[in-house]
């Protein structure tokens, strides 16, 4: 009986089963799975975050455009005129005698003749097609 037991032990020792490499494989697989899960989770989180930020950006952009539009509407000449009327403010252009000019007028006139000779510019202009 004692002999038999010994043999059994020997048999066990001689089998191909290696706990350490097996454990290593399991650990590696577990690590890879964990990393994959973590990456997946992070990715999901980042995706959600990006989406939320994009939504926020769109909301802000919309709000900005709406505000810009409202501002443009408020400062349009028509509305300024209405606002002045509301507060009984009458504004008039100064008469010619009231205008004091400190400098001699700058020569504003661009010579049209100089433009006539500028064929390059004209050619470029001709090449630009505006409409479809």
């Amino acid at each position, binding site marked *: 009986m004692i002999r038999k037991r010994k043999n059994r032990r020997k048999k066990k020792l001689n089998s191909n089963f290696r706990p350490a490499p097996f454990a290593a494989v399991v650990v590696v697989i577990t690590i890879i799975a964990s990393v994959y899960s973590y990456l997946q989770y992070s990715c999901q989180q980042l995706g959600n975050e990006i989406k939320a930020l994009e939504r926020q950006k769109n909301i802000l952009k919309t709000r900005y455009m709406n505000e810009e539009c409202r501002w443009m509407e408020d400062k349009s*000449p028509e509305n300024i005129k209405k606002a002045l009327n509301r507060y009984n403010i009458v504004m008039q252009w100064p008469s*010619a005698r009231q205008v004091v000019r400190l400098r001699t*007028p700058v020569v504003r006139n661009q010579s049209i003749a100089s433009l006539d000779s500028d064929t390059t510019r004209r050619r470029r202009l001709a090449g630009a097609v505006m409409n479809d």
Partner: protein
Amino acid sequence: MIDKSITGRFLFITVSLILIFIGLGVRLAFLHIGDHQEVLRRMKRKYYRERKIIARRGSIYDRNGHQNVLALTLSAKHVKADPKVISDKGLVREVAETLSHELDLPIDRLMVGLNSQKRYFSVKRFVPDTELDGLYKAKLTGIYFDDAVIRYYPQHELMCHVLGFVNNNGVGSAGVEQQANRFLRGCAGVVGSRINARRKEIYWEGGRYIAPINGADVTLTLDQNVQFIVERALDKVMEKHTPLGAWAIVEKVNTGEILAMASRPGYDLNKFRKSTENSRLNRAIGVVYEPGSTFKVVAFSAALNEGIVSERTVIDCENGSWFYMGRILRDSHGHDKLTVADGLKKSSNILTAKVALMLGRKRYYRYLKLFGMGNRMGIDLPGEEGGILHDEKRWSGISLSRIAIGQGVAVTALQMISAYCVVANGGYLVRPYVVSKIVSSDGEELYRRVPDPIRRVISERTALRMRKLLLRVTEEGGTGTRARVEGYKVAGKTGTAQKAIRGGYSNKDFVSSFVGFLPAEKPEIAIIVVVDTPHNGHYGGTVAGPAFSEIAEQTVRYMNIPPVSEVGL
């Protein structure tokens, strides 16, 4: 017995499992052996979602750039409903009342639309985001929103004919919106991604992302304040003289930049669907009219340029009635003899006709073409008319004498102001334009307009002489005294043209106009005002003259154009 029942069950389960696996195997075999490409495509489509990213249409600015936005794109929503969900829950009245209140819609239409078993009902399209706050808060069952964009014009009616509008498909359909649509529209982007069975995006699977290209921004040559001045002046004319229409243009004489272009009646660009075809017509470039005396500038310029006459040449004005080629030509006030200079000042038809006859029909026709009559000016706006000028070979015996005084020829206001710019800038016909530059959304300049002198029409000396003659029109004794501007010298011409009717000319319907430029010594801006069929007066000097004066006075102050000198030309 027990053994047998266990065996039976075991067999049943085994057979069932075998059958299931055989079924799955057969299905699998079919999927692989058969037309699996189609299945694959269907599956990919099912688990792939693609969304269009709307590109923002470019903005339109006035000549001051970003300070004054004339057209911009706002986000909006299409409001839609699922009537089945609403009616199944018995919420038809409640939902209809809220929608009616928030969106200003008739409740009966909503009740009919929502009280059905359909799965789709369009409540309202293109609702601005700003108007949806109440609806968002109400959180109505069965109401959904689709993303959309709308074109908004903060100035409403201002510059309506120049700006134009965008139709429901986002295509520019009039004015600059149409002309520069290629630049303004931009290009939509795409975002595509894989989704799981719960329709949630699988981020780590990657996807397709094509960024939208926003439309380019267009900067105009027009100034919103000058435009406002012009439109206000036209509104006054419309109120005082109740004409069929009135239109005006302000142009820089040296460069051809249009500073303002207005037409009445107008319309609110944000409600263009409610406007009429008549109000949408840009009369400044799209209506041709017989110009009357303002057209005399062509005959006088040509005659002076050719040396046929001088300012001092005296011509017999036949005491206001001249029988020529079987027809009578009259002056509004009879004169015996006048110099050419006085003939223009007093706007004598007979003198002008005689000057044109001295010039000859071939030479006069050549000058008409040089001034751009009968051809489009080539402005960068859609809908420009070219006017009516018959070929010289088709002229009758009296055509020359009549065309010289602005009858038997039709022009647009743009052609007329361009002709006066020739005199004002020293003899060049310059192409007018409204688009100054186009800049892409990433800041790259795609287009920049430079002044385009088409040709020299008259010599610089002739232009100067004509300026002196036209200056006399607004001086004491001239027809255009009401077009004067305090502190400035104005050169211009009045026009009172009988409207052509079948078989002749009307005695009660007129087109009154005034064209001029200032400061006369060194012209900067030219202005034309045209009034179609005015009441309470019909002379160009009394109807269009004051409007010209009002526009000119405020524009020179606003643009800080100084009066040149006191010494004269």
